[in-house]
């Protein structure tokens, strides 16, 4: 046994897979302590906030300021102000009016602005330009003028008793606040989803739930498959025929369709994570049973089994000591594969909306479902679905890698 464990950890594929899986597990266990709270709590009120650090504007107004005169502050401000579409429109105006722009660099805000200031004339009516477009250019010009003039912003408050507007604070163009001094700062590494939930927190919790579902489904499927395979293989005869009949039924009916039907028939309210896990387990034991059965059939005629029978050992004892240890390595690998396929099955189910209850725990599939339902992919909110896909891929990948590594250890002909 010790020797086997040492061999297993020498296999590079197993070690890599194991490390990835452990990293995911550890993150899943430790992160709730760093960032406690209910992952399903909605903290955003809009939809799909981008990842980043969010600073409370209200608090920063009343925070102590420091003055910095940064050389490129103005330019940065204007850069932010002028979107790339605006710049392109300005260039179009220049071209329509006939100004030479061959030496103009569109990203150089100062040059662009000076050229605009020098040449813009609202009275000009370039050929092919509609009235709406001219109005647009007028508005653009006005906003440009407004932007560069103000030096200070004033925050006013309406006094409740007197009804007067009272000045609250003055914000100078060179005023900066230290983010650490602001009372409320929220870092959202993966932004929020459409409900306004912290995606990262949700993802970690979902990961945990999905792995839990995978483990339960895998365990259920492996145990049922092992028991049925052992009985069918060793006892043969009527028992074998009966179990094979059952297996054939389950093979012929596509397991996924069965899964959908069962989940559909269970009311949404009663579908907890464990229920879904059980259902997945109960429909995916078939191939494990089949392969265990064929292994047991080849084992039961071995000499050591015959000698055990001649020594008068009871049936359970023979199965436990003479047959089970010989297929243990195989069952281990089958379990890992079942876990992987269980996680994927849950993800698929949840994507279709037939997964666990949406109000209790998030799962990876559910997150995908929401992202899809609320068109995250269409409005560019990659953070709502892309990390989920990566996590599913990594979990599957690491489990399969561990499996391949184990396979190489137990089957020497596959070693490279």
């Amino acid at each position, binding site marked *: 046994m010790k020797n086997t464990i040492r061999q297993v950890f020498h296999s590079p594929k197993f070690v890599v897979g194991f490390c990835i899986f452990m990293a995911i597990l550890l993150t899943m266990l430790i992160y709730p302590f760093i960032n406690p709270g209910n992952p399903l709590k909605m903290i955003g009120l809009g939809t799909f906030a981008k990842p980043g650090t969010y600073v409370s504007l209200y608090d920063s107004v009343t925070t102590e300021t420091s003055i910095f005169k940064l050389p490129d502050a103005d330019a940065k401000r204007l850069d932010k102000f002028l979107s790339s579409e605006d710049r392109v429109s300005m260039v179009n105006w220049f071209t329509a009016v006939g100004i030479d722009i061959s030496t103009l660099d569109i990203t150089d805000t100062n040059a662009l602005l000076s050229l605009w200031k020098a040449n813009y004339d609202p009275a000009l009516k370039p050929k092919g330009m509609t009235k709406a477009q001219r109005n647009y250019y007028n508005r653009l010009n006005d906003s440009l003028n407004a932007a560069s003039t103000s030096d200070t912003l004033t925050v006013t408050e309406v006094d409740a008793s007197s009804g007067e507007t009272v000045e609250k604070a003055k914000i100078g163009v060179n005023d900066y606040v230290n983010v650490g001094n602001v009372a409320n700062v929220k870092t959202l590494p993966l932004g929020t989803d459409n409900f306004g939930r912290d995606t990262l927190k949700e993802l970690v919790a979902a990961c945990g739930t999905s792995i839990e579902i995978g483990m339960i489904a895998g365990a259920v499927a492996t145990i049922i498959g092992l028991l049925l395979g052992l009985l069918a293989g060793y006892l043969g005869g009527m028992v074998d025929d009966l179990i094979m009949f059952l297996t054939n039924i389950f093979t012929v009916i596509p397991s996924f369709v069965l899964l959908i039907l069962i989940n559909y028939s269970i009311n949404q309210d009663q579908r907890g994570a464990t229920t879904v896990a059980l259902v997945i387990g109960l429909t995916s034991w078939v191939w494990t049973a089949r392969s265990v059965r064929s292994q047991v059939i080849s084992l039961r005629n*071995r*000499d*050591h089994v015959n*000698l055990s*029978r*001649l*020594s*008068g050992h009871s049936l359970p004892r023979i199965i436990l*000591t003479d047959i089970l240890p*010989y297929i243990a390595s195989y069952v281990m690998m089958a379990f890992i594969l079942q876990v992987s396929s269980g996680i994927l099955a849950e993800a698929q189910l949840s994507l279709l909306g037939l997964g666990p209850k949406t109000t209790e725990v998030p799962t990876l599939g559910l997150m995908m479902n929401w992202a899809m339902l609320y068109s995250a992919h269409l409005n560019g909110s990659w953070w709502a679905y892309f990390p989920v896909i990566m996590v599913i891929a990594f979990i599957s990948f690491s489990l399969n890698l561990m499996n391949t590594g184990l396979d190489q250890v137990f089957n020497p002909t596959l070693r490279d």
Partner: protein
Amino acid sequence: MTTSECTLHEDIALRPKRLEDLASRPLCLSGKGVTKIFGTGAKQTVAVDHVDFEFHEGELVSIVGESGSGKTTLSKMLLGLLNVTSGEIYYQGKPRDISTRHKKREYWKGIQAIFQDPFSSFNVFNKIDTVLLDCINMCGGRHLPKEKKIEMMTEACCFVNLKFAELTNKYPFELSGGQMQRLMIARVFLLKPKILLADEPTSMIDACSRATILDMLLHLRDEIGMTILFITHDIGLSYYISDSVYIMEHGKFVEHGTADEVILAPKAAYTKRLISDVPKIYEPWDLTTV
């Protein structure tokens, strides 16, 4: 007993005397019309076809046949591992009854086996101590004190020229083929059955170590008065060690008698052909009759 001092030679000298009182000894295992048919209907195969046999106590019987002759099937039926399709097997004069699990266990206290491949005869997860302890338990020694058990195991290993002290905590597959087969004989020494069925025990052993195994089997027979059923395809081997020989072809016994009768003066055509097909060294080997 040391390994290089084989006493097989002396045993052969004693054989004529042993054969004299063979007929007077009681029957330990016999059968009438024993048949085994696999499959049903048109696709039946008759593996063993109405065989009759009589094995006396203390006899060394060889069952000789080529592969496919049905000797393995017959051995499994004699061991009680396979059901008999028709015919009767008599154990110690009475019809054998192994209908319940309890009766089977009782039967297996009297008959044991050694198989051809020593590597697959042992469970790779059991250490040697476990294997031998299992035998002690089966003979009712479960409640003996630990020292007595170790003494019994040491004695058994000594009988087969292995040192128990060196074998503790080792696994059977760490030994060589010959050593493992000797360990199997040590098991039989502990179990002390009345009948031992040896299914080609030396075919996977080097020629140099073969004599040791045969010698030990014969010593075991002398020590506990055991009947040995020696199943083999090697007719020379059966001639060398057995008292009686049964020749099997296509599920039937075509000839039987004492070793001298069957091999030096065969009557059946199959036996004659079998003997002529084996290379000889004392007489010229006729290659023309192919």
